[in-house]
């Protein structure tokens, strides 16, 4: 069973406002807390090699 699909993405028609600012804001909204969590994780994980 293939995971490949012939269906094309349902991208909305190009007409409409430029949403690049909103996309950047949305990804930063979730990316910053995630980066903080990952930083704390890496800090703790290094204890395996130094602890």
């Amino acid at each position, binding site marked *: 069973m293939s995971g490949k699909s012939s269906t094309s*993405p*349902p991208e*909305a028609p190009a007409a409409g406002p430029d*949403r690049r600012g909103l996309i950047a804001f*949305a990804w930063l909204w*979730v990316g910053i807390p995630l980066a*903080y969590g990952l930083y*704390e994780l*890496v800090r703790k994980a290094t*204890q395996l090699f130094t602890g």
Partner: protein
Amino acid sequence: MSPPVAPPGWSRWLVPPAALAVHLSIGQAYAWSVFKPPLESALGLSGTQSALPFQLGIVMLGLSAAFGGTLVERRGPRWAMTVALICFSSGFLLSALGAATEQYWLIVFGYGFVGGIGLGIGYISPVSTLIKWFPDRPGMATGIAIMGFGGGALIASPWSAQMLESFGGDHTGIALAFLVHGLTYAVFMLLGVLLVRVPRPAPATVGAPAAALTGPQVSARDALRTPQFWLLWLVLCTNVTAGIGILEKAAPMITDFFADTSAPVSVTAAAGFVALLSAANMAGRIGWSSTSDLIGRKNIYRLYLGVGALMYALIAMFGDSSKPLFVLCALVILSFYGGGFATVPAYLKDLFGTYQVGAIHGRLLTAWSTAGVLGPLIVNWVADRQEEAGRHGSSLYGLSFMIMIGLLVAGFVANELVRPVHPRHHVSRPHETKEAADERQEQHESA
């Protein structure tokens, strides 16, 4: 509340952050242990009692995902995310009231029951929408969201600990921490509610389920009557059980394995090992799930279950002689554990179509609840019996590993038995001619 349809020009890349806003929040559940010690000392609770809100929350996650799935499909992702926001945040606010008034039952009810409904509805809320937006890469899309559930604990764990340190570990400090959690998560999840959109239906399919004219389309009720659903249930259950087998006792396991060697593992290093496993779990969710878009769902589960069994065999045979080998095998197993969670929505989409994939996914999550009981039970029970028999070190876990290998092989066989769903289970399609229906039947038979 009707499902919010994307306006012209709406980018599908706004949907994953909407999903992440919800999943990163509800993933906090796995950081509940941060609240356990202060609750135990402030309210005089035992370890078993302080675990109750989390346990009830996970039970409610499974139940609400299983029974609320159809409603989520009908009302749409914005409704589901709103319910998740209200329940998850209210759970914290009720817990704040419970801590402030020293009424522990209110914390159990608030966080466990009310918040748990938010966990289940929130978990399945973006799945179907993501698959519809990313029919070309469903594995990657759901992998991003489900990675968020793993990431939620990574954020909450240090954040909650710092908050408790600032507010104090007495009941007023805990109440204040719960209050801040409830309000912050409400604001954070709001982005998901505001951003999420369903794709505009193609002109030919107006009035019909989105993308209803391509691929198999099976209703949630009919899906339960197919062997494919139960085979996948078994696949997910065995894969999760095998992952939990390591995750449940990771810290004592690595300590026991190398206790009698020249390089024993310290408590600090064991904590680092647990953190590394979390990283592998998260990386597996996005990495393996995205890979499944390239190599296919059946093949990726062959990898999870077949190579997973091999990794367990390597640990059982050579684990105590090489620390790098032990760590590497455990990391691979945990990456497969995460990958198994993240790939299953796309596997369901391949088999049952997008029609009610969110609801079917919700029902399949009962396999997770079962594994959540089964995995720890096997590892702990076996380790206790071995200890009673006078064994120590790595020999405490040998039998558990053999059981895990057996489970993974059973899951592998179940995956091999998965075939395309018979057209008689497909929903009837508007405007479909008899010739088209016959062609569909023939395609199935040739597959």
